[in-house]
């Protein structure tokens, strides 16, 4: 995956986490006993293992107002844990459950680890999910048929006093001294459409206030999710590359020039 030449770039973005996810049709013959063998695929780089409750299946759908619906919980059929495979520094994470594979990178303040950039993370993700696909087919666990791609960027913004007011950070807010909220929670949804103007994915922008180190700052979470053009890993990766471009352009569009200077915008 190559970086688009015209994509906005920042030398010091407030990025603290990136999560790349592919959801697929449940693996028909997966049983919990396979968990150890699947860990073996990644164990040399991810030596810490945890079990978590599985994530709910999530699908972006269109055609009406985005009204919250009743969420479906667990069935009596056996549920399999979501496995966390962490590296020793706990900066990288692989997550596996029988219908999802996720790779996370996060910044750890004590380590001050550099963001390795999307191209590096997505290449590793593609390699790992391809290993998983091959293993599942060889062992008869099931065919890995992706149905949703999802990419999330989390930014924590704890800046100096001049940037504490939300309208000095974000172009989407316009407050004045007489009408300045004490707190805020903002969730915006945008549709991503194809060349025929048909929606196929959704971009979500979430802005909240959050403790950042010893200050109150802002959490800016941008997620793009939708179906790949085909149920293949190649098509899922292509979708994720497109989502990265949408997310970075959205980040650039909704934040101010003042904030860009602080984050050392290159182009």
């Amino acid at each position, binding site marked *: 995956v190559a970086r688009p030449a015209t994509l906005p770039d920042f030398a010091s973005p407030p990025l603290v986490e990136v999560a790349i996810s592919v959801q697929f049709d449940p693996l028909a013959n997966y049983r919990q006993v396979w968990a150890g063998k699947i860990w073996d695929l990644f164990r040399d780089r991810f030596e810490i293992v945890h*079990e*978590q*409750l599985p994530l709910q*299946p999530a699908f972006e*759908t*269109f055609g009406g107002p985005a009204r919250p619906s009743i*969420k479906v919980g*667990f069935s*009596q059929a056996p549920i399999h844990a979501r496995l966390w495979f962490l590296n020793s520094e706990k900066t990288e994470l692989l997550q596996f459950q029988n219908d999802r594979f996720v790779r996370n990178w996060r910044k750890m303040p004590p380590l001050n680890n550099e963001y390795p950039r999307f191209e590096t993370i997505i290449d590793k993700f593609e390699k790992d999910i391809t290993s998983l696909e091959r293993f599942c087919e060889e062992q008869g666990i099931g065919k890995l048929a992706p149905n949703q791609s999802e990419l999330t960027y989390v930014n924590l913004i704890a800046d100096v006093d001049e940037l504490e007011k939300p309208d000095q950070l974000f172009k989407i807010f316009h407050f004045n001294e007489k009408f300045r909220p004490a707190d805020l929670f903002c969730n915006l949804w945008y549709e991503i459409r194809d060349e025929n103007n048909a929606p*196929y994915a959704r971009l979500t922008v979430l802005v909240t206030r959050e403790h950042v180190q010893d200050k109150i700052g802002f959490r800016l979470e941008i997620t793009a999710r939708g179906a790949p053009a085909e149920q293949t890993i190649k098509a899922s990766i292509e979708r994720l590359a497109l989502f990265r471009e949408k997310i970075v352009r959205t980040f650039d569009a909704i934040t101010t020039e003042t904030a860009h200077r602080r984050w050392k915008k290159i182009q």
Partner: protein
Amino acid sequence: MMELSSLLSDRLFSSGTSTHWAPGAEARQAKLADTRPPRRLLSDVCYCWEQPVAERIAHLMNLQVGWDGYKGGPLTRANAQIAMQLLATVCAPDTPCPALVPLSSGGLQVEWHRATVDLEITIFSPRRITVYVSDQGTGEDGEEWSISSDFSSIVPHVHALSGAS
């Protein structure tokens, strides 16, 4: 029901106390969680089909393997989720409650049969959904087509049900 997250930077996970989220037996019963705030205003819209549909879906998710006398399995979580999303998208508050018929494959058929309209939506998987409509506009043979994530082609047919006797 608490929403789970896949992010490390969510506070729930950043404290390092995540291991207590191991699955427990109490989570194995099918549940439907209404995550919306309770109705408190007269202008809040009440969707009369929603509760019976939710209860029926929970029941179908709890079917035992072999419920059909063969090897039929329960309604899958993914198909249940997409069915709830589909209905939330296309149904109006006064849409008649559909019949929900399980498929042995774990899929679901959502059906309305009125005097002048037959509408059947078959969910084989979240990526494979077919729609069949028979009404005055289509003639006796009806029309059938496939959809995936965009449900807008169903909306006019579902809205027409409200007026059909």
